[in-house]
């Protein structure tokens, strides 16, 4: 597993980029601080502390009420933006974006693009970390500067000098670690998982594995929403059927590219015409096989438009795909080039072997690469 972590502001802060540069504290009245900007940190403000305490420490800060819906919306936006860069993507509201880039053909390009998209979404340079698991990647990102990448090759050595407060434990458990004298991750890693489990329960075992760089945790992959639609508003209202066909074809193209990105197909298609004066008309159909390309979608919708008898000039055209299903392919940009033709290429090679002999086609396999004798360096498989 190779995880890239992009560390940005808490999403509660990121939804107000106009406040960047000054101390900002997010939290409900009579509650704890949910997020605080970097500018508030020098005053001792930390997430989790009572808001009254934070106000006392940094009275000139801007205080914001939490808006979980807006943060969740931003999280969805970032997740969908990163979705085609890695097979597994997880974005958390506290500003952590993880991408599992193991197996990605051009992981460097994915990381570079993730940096660009995070910067576009948040408005600030993310800190980047690359490690064998989410925990070490997050700590690597925390130790990097904005826009830079820190790569961890030996997680145990990297984690050893860091404070044990980085472990995902509650305050009481962290205090207990402190009382036990386990103040660094190296000290936690040195004791056995069972010993700490007897002190802290299951969380103790988990903490030891994390400190050793074993990374027991896995990412929770983000899945795209199961509904999509596209619409066009006409000003002035349209009466021409050719114009409707033209627009519906363009909308099908937009929807197809979105479906392709998600690897989804439409199981149900609905077209809605909104008239200038009358009630809207709609037509809906359930299809046997999920439609995913522009040709398939327009093949269904085009005839509907052609035979439709609108009652009045049309002001809006909606194409909705309320039920999506996997279309047998996903995240196409991650595939190796020519994967789809692999069987045909293998068959062509086999035909060559039939005609010209087995020895015609061979694949090199490394054998004794350091051998001084050239013929020992590779095995040749027909």
């Amino acid at each position: 597993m190779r995880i890239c972590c992009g560390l940005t502001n808490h999403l509660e802060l990121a939804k107000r980029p106009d406040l960047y540069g000054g101390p900002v504290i997010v939290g409900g009245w009579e509650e704890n601080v949910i997020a605080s900007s970097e500018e508030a940190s020098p005053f001792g403000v930390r997430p989790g502390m009572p808001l009254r305490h934070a106000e006392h420490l940094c009275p000139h800060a801007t205080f914001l009420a939490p808006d979980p819906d807006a943060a969740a919306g931003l999280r969805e936006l970032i997740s969908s933006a990163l979705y085609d860069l890695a097979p597994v993507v997880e974005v958390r509201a506290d500003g952590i974006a993880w991408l599992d880039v193991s197996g990605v053909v051009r992981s460097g390009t994915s990381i570079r693009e993730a940096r660009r998209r995070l910067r576009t979404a948040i408005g600030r340079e993310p800190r980047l970390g690359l490690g064998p698991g989410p925990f070490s990647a997050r700590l690597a990102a925390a130790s990097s500067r904005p826009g830079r990448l820190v790569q961890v090759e030996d997680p145990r050595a990297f984690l050893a000098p860091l404070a044990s407060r980085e472990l995902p434990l509650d305050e009481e458990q962290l205090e207990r670690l402190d009382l036990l004298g386990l103040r660094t991750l190296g000290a936690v890693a040195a004791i056995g998982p069972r010993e700490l489990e007897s002190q802290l329960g299951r969380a103790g075992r988990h903490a030891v594995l994390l400190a050793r760089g074993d990374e027991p945790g896995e990412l929770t992959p983000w899945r795209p929403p199961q509904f999509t639609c596209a619409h066009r508003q006409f000003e002035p209202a349209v009466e021409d059927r050719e114009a409707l066909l033209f627009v519906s074809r363009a909308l099908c193209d937009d929807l197809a590219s979105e479906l392709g990105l998600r690897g989804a197909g439409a199981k149900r298609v609905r077209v809605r015409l909104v008239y200038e004066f009358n009630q809207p008309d709609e037509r809906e159909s359930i299809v046997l096989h999920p439609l995913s390309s522009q040709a398939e979608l327009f093949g269904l919708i085009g005839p509907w438009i052609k035979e439709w008898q609108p009652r009045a000039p049309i002001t809006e055209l909606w194409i909705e795909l309320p039920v999506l299903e996997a279309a047998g392919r996903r995240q196409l940009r991650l595939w190796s080039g020519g994967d789809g033709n692999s069987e045909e290429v293998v068959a062509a090679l086999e035909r060559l072997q039939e005609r010209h002999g087995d020895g015609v086609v061979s694949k090199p396999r490394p054998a004794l690469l350091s051998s001084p004798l050239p013929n020992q360096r590779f095995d040749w498989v027909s």
Partner: protein
Amino acid sequence: MQELDHAINTIRVRFGSQALTRAAELPPPQPWSSGTPLDHLSGIEGIPRGRLTLLTGSGTCGKLTLALGLLAAATREFAHAVVIDARGGFKQGSSRTHGEASEFVGNFDPWTLLPFDPELRSLTVVRLDPEASGEAATALARAGAGLILLMGEVPEQWLGPLEAGANRSGTVLIGVVDAPGRAFAHASSLSLGFSRAEWIWDRDQLVGLRTIARCLKNRVAPPLGESELVIRYPLGPRLPFEAPVLEVPLHAVELECASAVV
């Protein structure tokens, strides 16, 4: 000008409207970004898919090294990268020493590929006599192999089917020859010529060469000028070798620290 228009009209009347097409009217080929300096020379920021690209030059001039760089990039990116050893003179396990490239064009040795960090699982080597190599290349291009490296010329009668097959599947065709024949040169869409400028020596040891890469023919974009490339040979008896410098640095995201100690 009128005479030229008249000639064009005559050809179209005699051989059909498709016989001649203005370059500007052709759909631009999709580029395959290989990450080597050759991408910039093509004018489309990549090697054209579905077209034949020739790397030519006499003697040791770096064409084979650059072809190996392209092949290694293709093994990492495509499911199938195929080398067609058209000369049939393949010596299994033979090693290439510097300065002997001219003798070894046509003899593919995976050992020479190792410095470019290839993904050997995707690599297939097809060894055939020159007559059958055209048939093999055409079959593989039609099937949709990602990249085909031709270590020698393809017979003239197979050039048309080869180009059509590659065009349909988007296969990247690279040919490496000292001096191409007329048919092979005519079939290519992009032809890059290499000429060695000087050897690079370090402590009395040959460590590389400086070569001039020129765009001799370009049917995919306006021809660009030339570029000077520095090719460094891998040195030392141990693996992994030092990476050759011909690859364009991919790390726009700056690597701050590659070790465990921060």
